[in-house]
């Protein structure tokens, strides 16, 4: 009964020696409290550049909370307190001198439920570049929008309806629009919080394909409930349980040869 299920991992997983990648994001002794609740306990993790890192674990294990620490989205929750050290490119993101607005421009986020703005497709993608003053002319903005939509593989479906509302798209298209919206401000990191949980299998497959392409240019951290998805898209995987980072390693290793019994139990479907 203890035999591990076989997960199909991407070819890239074994081809890229992860140790050679320098860490883009480092977390040291990260603790998160929601009021009295200790949600994240002493998490240490290195996330390599230009690769996909998956956070897996049962519901309420703290994986989304940790993800939201990386672009300080937890700041909006008044009872939330973060201690420890999270660095991107060696720079402390909780440093007082750091501007959280600039941080979020560097660390984009895609949410669980597609949340396009109730604006046209074009305006959705142009939103970020506009607020950050990245463009000088309309032509330049057009180009950014086109590039972002192409990178998010939405261009072919959307190019003839750029002025239609983003909320009129299908769920999968909406989520790709949200990815395009994040890409348009040229971030270095993209955080994805269960990006496919509201989507059907075909839309999910498209997003996964997209994630695989995006890792050439971006560092991607994805929280997922689907272990198959983690196995398919990520190079490294971290398993969270009850606020603790139980085990972290190459996706291959986590799914074929987990060290910790909790990890083994989780991926064999004993709990979670």
């Amino acid at each position, binding site marked *: 009964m203890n035999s591990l299920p076989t997960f199909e991992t991407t070819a890239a997983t074994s081809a890229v020696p992860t140790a050679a990648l320098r860490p883009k994001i480092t977390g040291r002794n990260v603790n998160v409290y929601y009021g009295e609740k200790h949600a994240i306990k002493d998490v240490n993790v290195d996330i390599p550049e230009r690769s996909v890192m998956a956070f897996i674990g049962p519901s309420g294990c703290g994986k989304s909370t940790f993800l939201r620490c990386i672009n300080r989205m937890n700041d909006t929750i008044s009872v939330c307190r973060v201690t420890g050290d999270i660095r991107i490119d060696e720079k402390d993101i909780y440093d007082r001198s750091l501007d959280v607005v600039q941080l979020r421009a560097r660390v984009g986020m895609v*949410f669980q439920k597609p949340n396009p703005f109730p604006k046209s497709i074009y305006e959705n993608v142009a939103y970020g570049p506009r607020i950050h003053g990245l463009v000088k002319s309309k032509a330049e903005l057009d180009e950014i929008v086109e590039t972002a939509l192409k990178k998010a593989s939405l261009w072919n479906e959307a190019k003839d309806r750029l002025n239609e509302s983003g909320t009129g798209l299908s769920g999968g298209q909406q989520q790709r629009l949200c990815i395009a919206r*994040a890409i348009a401000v040229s971030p270095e990191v993209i955080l994805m919080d269960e990006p496919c949980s509201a989507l059907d299998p075909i839309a999910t497959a498209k997003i996964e394909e997209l994630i695989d392409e995006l890792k050439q240019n971006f560092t991607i951290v994805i929280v997922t409930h689907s272990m198959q998805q983690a196995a398919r898209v990520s190079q490294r995987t971290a398993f969270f349980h009850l606020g603790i980072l139980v085990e972290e390693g190459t996706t291959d290793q986590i799914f074929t040869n987990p060290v910790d019994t909790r990890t083994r139990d989780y991926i064999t479907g004993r709990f979670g």
Partner: protein
Amino acid sequence: MFLTLFGLILAIAVVCFYVGRNRAVAVSGANFSALHSLPSYHGWWLILMAAGPAFAVLVLWSIISPYVLRPLMLSQFAPQLAEFSAAQLDGFWRDIQAIAGGGTPGVRDAFREEAATAYQSVNRMSLTGMIALMLLLGAGGFYFAWNAIAVHFRARHKVEAAINVFLAASATVAILTTVGIVMSLLFESLRFFSMVNPIDFLFGTTWTPQQMAFRPDQVGGTAAFGFIPLLTGTLLITFIAMMVAAPLGILAAIYLSDYASPQVRAVGKPILELLAGIPTVVYGFFAALTVAPFIRNSGQAMGLDVSSESALAAGVVMGIMIVPFVSSLSDDVINAVPQSLRDGSAGLGATKSETIRRVVLPAALPGIVSALVLAVSRAMGETMIVVMAAGMAANLTINPLEAVTTITVQIGTLLTGDQEFDSPKTLAAFGLGLSLFVITLSLNLVALRVVNKYREQYD
């Protein structure tokens, strides 16, 4: 009499309920689950069939009988009443009712005593007829319903159908009332427009109805019914009020929904809504005694000529009055914009104010516009503040420092005091009322169209 009968029907209904319920229990042979409907439904069924028709007869008869009895009585005494005017006939009718009912009549003479006696006997006959009909229908209904009660009788569906009818009737009453008000406005306005040319009314620039001679022997000036000064006055004051209320209200709503801490919000919102509970007459003297002198004094200090009653004073205070309408409704719609949109915007590095300006407000726009439209309607309909702070002078001006008057104020002035009801002076009030109604209605329609066209729909 009506109340006594009503009480009696109520008592009978209570009895019917228990009788029906017990009957249902009896026919089921103590086996409740065999019944199609619960015993209480059978009780209601019996009430509906026994007391319902009797009650309907009571209400309808009470409403209709005066309309039958009055012509009857008047025709009976037609020779003596030949000289009477319409108003005198009304008086005669009131008098005989008072004498017959033991009240205090205006005039009591032999003729009226005789008429009252005749009225009494007719009335008694009518009453007896009514009670007989009620008894007949009640007993018939009871007999029918009593026999209908059986194990498989679907009393529940019957009661459900009756509830449906009852609710539909309630809705109909509300709708018919609205239609009735519009109709009366329309017909009285038509009478007015038969006396005053609509073109003169709609495009005339002087409003002097009070100069009309009150009686034929009085020397009066020329009355003019030009509606333009009132319209400009109304629009001017509404405009000033919205200049105050729209920014204050929307900004307060944004603060309360997105910036204030939960504690501040818990205290601030009710306090703001308290403003809506202040009677407008209190705002009126606040405007007349505090704001208007303040504006006049500051105006004079700046070398401006400000009258002691000014559109500005009334408008500003009215603006304060409608702030809670705007803020409370806007706050609700801003809160209804999903948090996921705010997160999405923040996740792209937008600041709070950028998020509100570019995402939240556009998404909340339809609701905010309807809040503003409601506030405009409210401002246009407001009377008391204008009477006290802006005056009654129908000046055609757009200078906010002068005294102006509004449509509602003039309606109030035209209809108060002793007035002849068929003079254009009085009927002008209905013309004004109709104009105001048309203005607010079209405003609402236009706003609705605008909102539907520009709304940014989120799911």
